[in-house]
């Protein structure tokens, strides 16, 4: 079991990433808090050590995406309205950013994941394949389709 110092360091390093992945997937802040706590509980109970900080970061990304999927499966009948999720962020976002996020959040789930990991976290397709447990070619295909969808909605200057 991880000690308090390790938990605190992990919280400082990965809290924002975990929060963003939750934002991309979940329906409201209560669900986010549930998943957020689940992820760090899994970290606290994780017995193995990480080879590097990159390994640890990828572990957090993978565990958070899986925890979000579990949460969505559990509440599969609840309707998800991206605008509500964005509205919960209040003044943190201006109109332009809200518009971009609305388009991103309306993408199918698998595209949301690759777009976030590729454009925000800066992972390569091969690394995303490792995190999501998919073939690299599949990630390239998803990225290409997601980019096409974003280009249709946002025009050519979004990346």
């Amino acid at each position: 079991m991880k000690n308090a110092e390790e938990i605190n360091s992990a919280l400082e390093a990965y809290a924002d990433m975990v929060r963003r992945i939750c934002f991309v997937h979940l329906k409201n802040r209560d669900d986010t808090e549930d998943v957020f706590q689940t992820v760090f509980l899994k970290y606290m109970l994780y017995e193995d050590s990480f080879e590097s900080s990159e390994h640890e970061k990828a572990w957090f990304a993978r565990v958070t995406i899986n925890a979000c999927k579990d949460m969505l499966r559990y509440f599969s009948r609840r309707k998800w309205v991206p605008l509500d999720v964005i509205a919960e962020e209040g003044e943190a976002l201006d109109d332009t950013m809200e518009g971009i996020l609305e388009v991103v959040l309306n993408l199918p789930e698998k595209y949301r994941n690759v777009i976030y990991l590729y454009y925000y976290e800066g992972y390569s397709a091969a690394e995303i394949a490792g995190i999501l447990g998919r073939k690299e070619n599949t990630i390239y295909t998803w990225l290409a389709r997601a980019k096409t969808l974003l280009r249709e909605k946002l025009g050519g200057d979004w990346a």
Partner: protein
Amino acid sequence: MNLIWESMKNIQATEKLKQNTLQYLNEQQRRKYRVRTRFVPSYALAVFGLLCLIGTAGGFVYSKPVSYISIDVNPSIELSVNRFGRVVYSETYSDEGKGITGQIPLKNVSYMQAINRLLNDDKYMKYLGKDSILVFTVISDRSEQILENLKSSKLLEKYSALTYTSDLSCMEEAHRHEMSFGKYRTYLELLEYDGSVTIEDCHEMTMGELRDRIDACAHGVQADNEKEHHGSGHHGKGNGCDN
């Protein structure tokens, strides 16, 4: 930089979310421990349960400080840090200090974050002139780790901050004199060279002035010349008060 990155950079974990998570993990740890002790003889369990109830009720673990960091320039500010490395109290003994702690949110963030907030604050930066000396004094079972974190900070390097350790008895004495333990440690260091200096004199002096007096006494040369020799990463054990 791309628009996806731009649009998401402000989506961040709030301090409240982090705090709630730390408390949740604490509860889970305690629950796990309770399950493990299911087979302990019942009387021992009852005593243990009672101690747990008394010792860990509410946010006791979270709010209990285990380390202390005194940040002294003039004014002095003390941070009390819990086992998670988060600031649970900030204390100051001057009106100037109260003006700063009242303005900068230092609680419930990591001690490095609190120090960064302090050193980046415009009002506090006014005290960090070229003649001033910034001193960090640490009391902790994990002082080596805390000092290492402090020394790796670019901001501390920028201000050529000095770092020391001290102990709880020194802190108690310092607080009896309404002084931070960092400044009190420096007073004790000066006292070793100059027996005529009083705690009242020390109250009126900045850390830079105290340091100048110590250097002048120690090396017998003008304090101004001595300042050039102060570098970051200076590190010593507290004077006096050691048990």
